[in-house]
């Protein structure tokens, strides 16, 4: 009977390589997960932690944020999803860092880790460090900051703009009320009147024509572009040093997108802050970013300045991405396309994650995961194509 099969394991090599878990496996996994989760949750819930434990020193004083070997995992019932699997990059002061990658490659989880907003209890930072330099000159080790302290850092120094502006605004409160609340929460010595003044000023700053009128409207009365502006105004109202924009224009039209990007750029100049811009649109990155981080399946496969990434991409995935976007030039021939799809996040291979889709894959690629190779002080890529020490004579001949 079919029903009984759910208790049995059956896997046919060759035809069906998908892993199916039996009930017993799932029970075992969830038991193990519970143990791990409990441990991390206890760490985060500690009270009265001495400051020394989470204060640290930046590697480079010009950086606002430094990610180092960050691992963020989700302990789900079907297995551990390694959403962020060893990510290291810096966000320098006053620069825009663009993060690109396919959906599900861990862009959002990286930024949520910085805010300690990863969906607990299943999601946990298990390894690595995130160093953040606050306005007051202190450097925090975000992975060790206890929850109560994090509330203060979040929103004041770092603010976040989300993809879907409708769901991040509370539909039952007026725009003004929501904006004032943020100001009152994070700024000391604010009265309701001064908070209102501040909010209206911010609305004007983001280019809303009649801020007083918008101030007393409900979110549903605004268009998508307006809502996104309100979100940005809210994010700006506490003078953040770092804005994380998670796909801020994906839900918007091109003409509105142009407005919002223009606005973000202007504002960055005005407040001299840094922006972490997450998107899957290469065009947006090319326009906005100073530095680019390309992610694939939870890892950084290439990073560098915009020019380096767009003019001399190294990793086959980056090269493929550049080629697969139709542009005026490629009109009549077939588009280049990267074959296949992202591997299952639960059963990641040990070798290069891009192996199954790579058109230049070699035998060495089946070895351990390739290391980042440096091309210039800023340009790195993780691919065996450029690792001379590992290339055997055979592969070189093929080249």
């Amino acid at each position, binding site marked *: 009977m079919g029903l009984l099969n759910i208790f049995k394991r059956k896997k046919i090599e060759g*035809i*069906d390589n*998908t892993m199916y878990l039996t009930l017993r496996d799932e029970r075992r996994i969830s038991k193990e997960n519970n143990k791990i989760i409990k441990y991390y949750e206890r760490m985060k819930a500690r009270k009265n932690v001495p400051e020394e434990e989470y204060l640290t020193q930046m590697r480079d004083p010009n950086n606002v944020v430094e990610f180092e070997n960050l691992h963020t995992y989700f302990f789900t019932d079907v297995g551990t999803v390694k959403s962020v699997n060893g990510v290291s990059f810096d966000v320098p002061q006053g620069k825009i860092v663009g993060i690109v990658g*396919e*959906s599900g490659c861990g862009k959002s989880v990286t930024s949520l880790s910085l805010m300690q907003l990863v969906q607990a209890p299943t999601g946990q930072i298990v390894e690595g460090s995130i160093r953040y330099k606050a306005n007051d000159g202190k450097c925090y080790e975000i992975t060790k900051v206890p929850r109560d302290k994090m509330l203060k850092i979040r929103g004041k120094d770092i603010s976040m703009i989300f993809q879907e502006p409708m769901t991040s605004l509370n539909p039952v409160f007026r725009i003004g009320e929501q904006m004032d609340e943020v100001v009152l929460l994070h700024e000391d010595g604010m009265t309701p009147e001064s908070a209102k003044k501040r909010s209206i000023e911010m609305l004007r700053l983001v280019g809303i*024509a009649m801020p007083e009128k918008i101030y007393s409207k409900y979110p549903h009365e605004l*268009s*998508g*572009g*307006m809502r996104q502006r309100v979100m940005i105004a809210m994010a700006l109202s506490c003078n953040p040093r770092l804005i994380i924009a998670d796909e801020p224009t994906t839900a918007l*039209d*091109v*003409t*509105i*997108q*142009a*407005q919002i*990007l*223009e606005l973000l750029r202007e504002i960055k100049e005005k407040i001299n802050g840094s922006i972490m811009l997450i998107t*899957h*649109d*290469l*065009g*947006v990155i*090319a*326009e906005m970013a100073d530095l680019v981080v390309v992610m694939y399946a939870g890892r950084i496969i290439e990073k560098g300045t*915009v*020019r380096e990434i*767009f*003019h001399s991409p190294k990793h086959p995935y980056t090269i*493929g*991405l*550049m080629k*697969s*976007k*139709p*542009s*005026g030039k*490629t*009109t009549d021939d*077939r*588009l*280049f*396309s*990267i*074959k296949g*799809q*992202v591997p299952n996040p639960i059963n990641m291979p040990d070798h290069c994650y891009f192996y199954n889709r790579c058109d230049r894959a070699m035998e060495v690629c089946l070895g351990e995961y390739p290391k980042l190779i440096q091309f210039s002080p800023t340009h790195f890529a993780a691919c065996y194509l450029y690792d001379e020490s590992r290339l055997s004579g055979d592969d070189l001949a093929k080249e």
Partner: protein
Amino acid sequence: MEKAKIDNDYILEVKNLKKYYPVSRFSISKNRAYVKAVDDISFKIKRGTTMGLVGESGCGKTTAGRSILRLHDITGGQVVFDGKDLSKISPGKLRRMRPQMQMIFQDPYSSLSPRMPVGEIIGEAVREHRIVPKSQYRSYILKVMRDCGLQPQYFYRYPHEFSGGQRQRISIARAVALNPKFIVCDEPLSALDVSIQAQIINLMKDLQEQYGYTYLFISHDLSVVEYISDTIGVMYLGSMMEMGDKKRIFENPMHPYTKALLSAVPISDPDVKMNRIILSGDIPSPVNPPSGCKFRTRCQSCMEVCARKVPKLKEYEEGHMVACHLYSQD
């Protein structure tokens, strides 16, 4: 070989198509307000070519696509498909004609019934319309699946096991299996990743080459539309603003809205900085659009006449029509 037979006739002619949605169903007053989702648009599509339909969200692209397929009743106008007027045809006849005109949907998640295996999703209507004899049903479906890049063992699998790109392939296979002449593609790429988008575009192009399909390709991604279309229509608030050959539209955009739209597309090259036209103001509500030219609230070259008179869609070069007072209206 199919392509060689293509003659110059038009497979689809849309004449003065209108679709209004009443704003509230229980309105007390007699003269109800309407959203003019599609407000008097006309165009023709040549057999075997692709027409791109672009515009901002909410401008009525989807509504236009659905009205053409008679998926809902239309308020006015005519849709002539392959010489038959769809607005006059009886429901039974229409149902039998349906296989000839198919649709590919935007959301690959909600467009596949979750409780049906893939083979059944693709084959259900094939069986019902007896596209192939019973004995060949199975191999026919498998052939279609192979054409669309789906492996045969997916036949028994259910949609929840597939990624967005694969689901979109299933959706395409469902349409293609009915051996259609005309396919409306309603933003088939917008839910997919860039690397998967290219796979789907290639698939659609290959199928068109092989079987001579005619596409109406709805999208807001101008670079994709430029790549795949032969002619392009630009919509704004339910009206056609500019229409013509792809080359002419992209090389010589005439309408201020088209110009803004084209300049807003981000370019994948950090050294090229576009001279961008940033539109100020938001999209007006479709319930009461501005008088005269609908675009005038955001237009930078708005004139006095624009508020008074609705500009007519007129042909200025061969195969290039524009609705704007900047160009002579007589």
